[in-house]
Structures are given as structure tokens and as C-alpha cells.
């Protein structure tokens, strides 16, 4: 049984606020399906606006799906709400890109970390809660002596460790990590990635890891799902996706990784008119058409479904070699 199963989930946002009647609709996530097994890491990669953060929030049940089904450990939580949902939240917890932004600056660190215990372990005394916080902070590589300090007294890397501790304290089976290292220095990023791996091994946690950075993902993911315009366009074992990408968009993401050595530079004179990164999505057929070097006439009527090999493309890269 999967610790998290998402089946045919869609979510549409209506822009325009109070003028909703004339607002535009944006389909953020379209017919998305994936599942996550205990102890594994599934990375969802894509650019800004591809729907990966919406996916995270849907899986967390911070957002309600328009249709489809979301299961935590086999229990359907799609339309759960209120107390019933809150009591189940210890199953799945979230770590944000900038956890600091969501904390009360006037609460001490130990109170911030212990907040989840109020719902899930209300039987504990204050001292027991403090002990549990100290233990969890220690697991995340922080010295418990800092637990009576305030959030602004910690560096970016320490805050991210605290954010992880806060998620771990209710002993979840799944962590949803939304760009957890994107805002950090390279040196701190490496520390946090190693920490996440250690915790996963120690606790058998499953990670849903959201990122735009494939070089980061290569270090943590067992499986990868590449999202574009609200859909998964390619998925598979991490090593296979890296070695043999099928979808042209996956290739584009791989090519965007930073190079390791100056000798690998390939800066041609790029004609700005050929810069298609800013192009919109196609209205029908494969959404990637306007940016795709291999787009053909049949792409306009393609339904965009993943095939049995785990990619959604009529003219995959393997064909062009």
C-alpha cells in the first residue's frame, strides 16, 4: 500500500478576485496520477508555473482537488475536512523553501517546533514536549541549547534544519519538501541534502521532493516525475531519466544544469528571437509545442497521455538519434 496515492487529480484556479465572472481560468494541475511508497523519494521537477507546488499542496490536502482521489496510507482523504483531516495530518508533513516566513517571530524556537504536538500529542507535559523538541533538533543536527532563542537568531541553513525538525516532530510517514534547498548557499545546500538522506535512512520516511534543479534532484531522488503545464510529461527511475531522457522538455531541463568545468562552455551567439523559453503553452495538443525543436503537425492533436514507457511525446528524443 502506498503511503501517498494521487489518482487523476485536477485543479483549476480562477484569476480575477472580486471580478471572478470575467476572470481567466488557469488549469494548474491536470489529470495527475502518481504514488509514493514507504522509504522512497519521488522528485517532481519542472519550471515555475508547471504546477509542481500546486501538486504538493494538493497531496498535503492544503488545497482541495476539483476532482480525482488522494489517499494517505490507503485512506481516502480527498474530501475530508475539519477535525477529521487535522487528526490525520501527522501522516504527512511539509517543509517549505523559506520556513522562516511562516513562523511567528515572537515564539521561541522550541515552541515553534512543538506546535504540532498540541494536536497530535496533547497528552504530553511541557517538560516532555521540551525533551522531544531537544531530541528532534539533535536529529536535525542542531544543538538543543538554542531552543529558547528566537527565529531571527538563526542562519538560513539552521532555519531549514528547524523547519525539518518541526515537520518531523509528529512522526510523519511522508515529508513533502517544496524547494527545500533552493534559497540556500551551495555549501549549506549540501549539508541539508545529506541531512535529509540520513534522516530518511534512519526513519524510513518517504519524500515528495519538489525542485526545479535537476543536479540537486540527482542526489536525492529514486524516481523522477517531470511536470510541464500541469501534467507529468515523463517519469521513471532517476538514473534512467538522467541517462536516457525521452521527452524534449526533460532534455532541456538537463541541459540547463550548471556545468562542472569552464572547458564545457558552449555559449554560441544566441539569437534572442530564437529564445523560446518565454513562449506560452499551446492551446491544444502537446503544451510544449511552441518551445519544442521537434514539434510536428500531429503534436497539435496529441492527447498528452503518458505511454507505457512513462513519457508523453509523439517524437521522443530516441527517435532523433
Amino acid at each position, binding site marked *: 500500500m502506498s503511503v501517498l496515492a494521487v489518482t487523476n487529480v485536477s485543479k483549476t484556479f480562477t484569476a480575477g478576485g472580486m471580478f471572478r465572472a470575467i476572470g481567466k481560468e488557469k488549469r494548474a494541475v491536470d489529470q495527475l496520477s502518481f504514488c509514493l511508497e514507504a522509504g522512497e523519494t519521488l522528485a517532481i521537477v519542472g519550471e515555475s508555473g508547471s504546477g509542481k507546488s500546486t501538486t504538493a499542496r494538493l497531496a498535503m490536502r492544503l488545497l482541495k482537488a476539483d476532482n480525482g482521489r488522494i489517499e494517505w496510507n490507503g485512506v481516502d482523504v480527498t474530501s475530508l475536512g475539519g477535525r477529521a483531516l487535522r487528526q490525520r495530518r501527522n501522516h504527512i508533513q511539509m517543509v517549505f523553501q523559506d520556513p522562516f516566513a511562516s513562523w511567528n517571530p515572537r515564539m521561541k524556537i522550541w515552541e515553534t517546533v512543538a506546535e504540532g504536538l498540541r494536536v497530535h500529542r496533547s497528552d504530553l507535559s511541557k517538560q516532555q514536549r521540551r525533551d522531544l523538541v531537544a531530541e528532534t533538533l539533535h536529529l536535525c543536527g542542531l544543538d538543543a541549547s538554542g531552543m529558547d532563542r528566537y527565529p531571527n537568531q538563526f*542562519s538560513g541553513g539552521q532555519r531549514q534544519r528547524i523547519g525539518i525538525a518541526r515537520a518531523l516532530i509528529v512522526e510523519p510517514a511522508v515529508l513533502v519538501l517544496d524547494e527545500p534547498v533552493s534559497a540556500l548557499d551551495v555549501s549549506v545546500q549540501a549539508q541539508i541534502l545529506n541531512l535529509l538522506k540520513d534522516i530518511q535512512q534512519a526513519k524510513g520516511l518517504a519524500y515528495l521532493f519538489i525542485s526545479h534543479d535537476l543536479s540537486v534532484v540527482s542526489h536525492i531522488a529514486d524516481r523522477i516525475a517531470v511536470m510541464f503545464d500541469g501534467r507529468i510529461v515523463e517519469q521513471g527511475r532517476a538514473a534512467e531519466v538522467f541517462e536516457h531522457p525521452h521527452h524534449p522538455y526533460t532534455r532541456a531541463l538537463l541541459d540547463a544544469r*550548471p556545468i*562542472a568545468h569552464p572547458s564545457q*562552455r558552449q555559449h554560441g551567439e544566441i539569437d534572442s528571437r530564437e529564445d523560446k523559453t518565454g513562449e506560452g503553452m499551446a492551446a491544444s495538443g502537446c503544451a510544449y509545442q511552441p518551445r519544442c525543436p521537434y514539434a510536428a503537425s500531429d503534436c497539435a492533436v496529441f492527447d498528452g497521455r503518458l505511454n507505457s514507457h512513462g513519457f508523453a511525446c509523439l517524437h521522443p528524443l530516441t527517435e532523433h538519434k
Partner: protein
Amino acid sequence: MLEIRDLSLTVSIDGRRVEAVSAVSLQLEAGRVLGLVGESGCGKSLTAQAILRLGEHQGVEKCCGDILLDGNSLFEMDDESLRRIRGGRISMVFQEPMTALNPVFSIGSQITEVIRLHLDMDKQQAHARAVQLLRDVGMQDAEQILKQYPDSLSGGMRQRVLIAMAMAADPDYIIADEPTTALDVSVQKRIITLLLNLQKKRNLGLLLVTHDFGLVAEMCDDVAVMYAGQIVEAGKVADIFDHPAHPYTRALMGCRPEISEPGKSLTVISGQVPPPGQWPQGCHFADRCSLVQPDCMQNPVEATAWQQGKHLARCLYVDIPVDASGDEHDRDHRT
């Protein structure tokens, strides 16, 4: 040429003045890209901002050294000359494209403001130039963009607008402070290519401030690595990548996920950059260095402690043989 000469800056911490940048020297020539690399809190942004004498109203003070533009000290200039240099001869691209743009003015009015401040143009001419600038940075529907406000643009678009603004008065030097850190990887590549194309076409001197050696590999001709207020290593990009001399440089390079084997643990630098006022007395990196020796702790290490041509490193123990992979374990038997 833009030259920083022995620049030291102090900041105020708990009412005490402490040194945050210590005797930094850098040279930026037209047509070259210089990378200033280091972790957060090493003083690289302070150094970069000091070139335009920014940060002074936030309590950053120069205690010694000088910054020279074609031989003229920026610290001896009156406000009017300085204003003409800011944006006119040296301009800046900031990290946060949202905070660097004013949300209540249209893109057009913000770009034309810069143009008219530095160039003798009327409204129509300035508008035409703004359109051209936006096209140069790859925005084809420039007329449309000029009417929009910053909040309706994506992060990558905003960064393009900032680059266009930096180019507005045809400067000779651009200082780019983490220009791509807030962006998606795919957008990052485009912005890098754009900056490099402009730099080559106009023979600009570009100072790139970054924590990411990946960006240095992509862009720079020369590199200066900064740690706790000091330049610890400087040289040509190929030399630095092929023969990194300072342990800090090697450690920072080793952290990058793109160079380590997938699935393996990443190399880390333990601990944190010591804040100004708490720098060790000897080598600033001593307490985090995996190769530290007793005499590293005793006396300040000279910037030229190790030298090979123009490649310098502030380290007493560079000449220890190291295998090609830079593996630290083979270096333990040196004493």
C-alpha cells in the same frame, strides 16, 4: 580600469565597529568577467556595493584603501560626479528583481527615468531607446512590457528588465550581485547567455558576485574567492578550476551537486563563516579547514603566501602534493 585597492570596510555590531572587509584588492578590466565567489556573510556583496558607495547610509564605513575608476578615486568625488557614474559608467544588477523595481511605477517609466537621467534625450527618444533595450534583452513585445507593472512579470522577465535598465546609459562596467540565484535553472541559463552576449558585444567589464562555482565555470575569465572578509585565492578561471590552491576553494567546489556522483553523499564544509568581529587571529579559514596545522592559527596569513604567476592563495600549505581529484586523504602525511 576599475580598481579596488586594499579596501577595508567596517560595520557596526552591537555598537562596536568591526571590520567586515579586510584589505581587498581587485582589478576589473573592460571586456573581462571577474567572479567574486564565497558563501553568504563573507563580505562579497559589501565589497561590490562599496564600488558604487552604496551601503554607506546603512552604516558601512571605509576605514582604508581606495576604489579607482580610470585612476580617479570614487571616494574623493562630489555627489554630482558620483551620480553620473552610478548607472552612467558603472551600473548594478541586483539579486532580488522584485525589490529592485518599484511596484507603483510602470516598467516604461522606470527605464526612461534612467535613460533621461544620464542621456540627453526627450521623451520620444527615451521611449524608443527603452524599446530597443528590451528587445536587446530578448523581450520582443517591448511596447507592451513598457506599459506593465513589475508584479505582472515573472522573475526571469523582471531580471531581464533590470539588465535592460543597467544597460540604459551604456555603462563600461556592470556589477551583477547574484543575478540568477532567485531564478529557475532553465531561466538562469538564458540570463547567463544574455549577460555574456551583451558583455562581449559592448566590451563591458563584468563583476559577478556569486556563491556558485557553476556560474563561475559558465561565465568568468578571472576569479577571486572571498572568505571572512579576505580574498583567499585569485587567478584565471582555468587555473582555479584545474589547480585550486586554497582548501576553502576546493571545499566550495566540492559542495556542488553537479560534480559529485549521483546518489553519493555530498561533500560539505562543516561549520559556518565566522561573523565580522569573530574572525580567527591566524588564517580565517583555520577552524573549518580539514588540513589545518598549528602555525595556521598563530599569525595572519599573507595574501601572497602562495604564488604562481598571477595565481595567488592565502595559504601556508598549498605546496603539499595533491592528486588530481583533490582528495584530501592523500594529503595527511605532510608534517
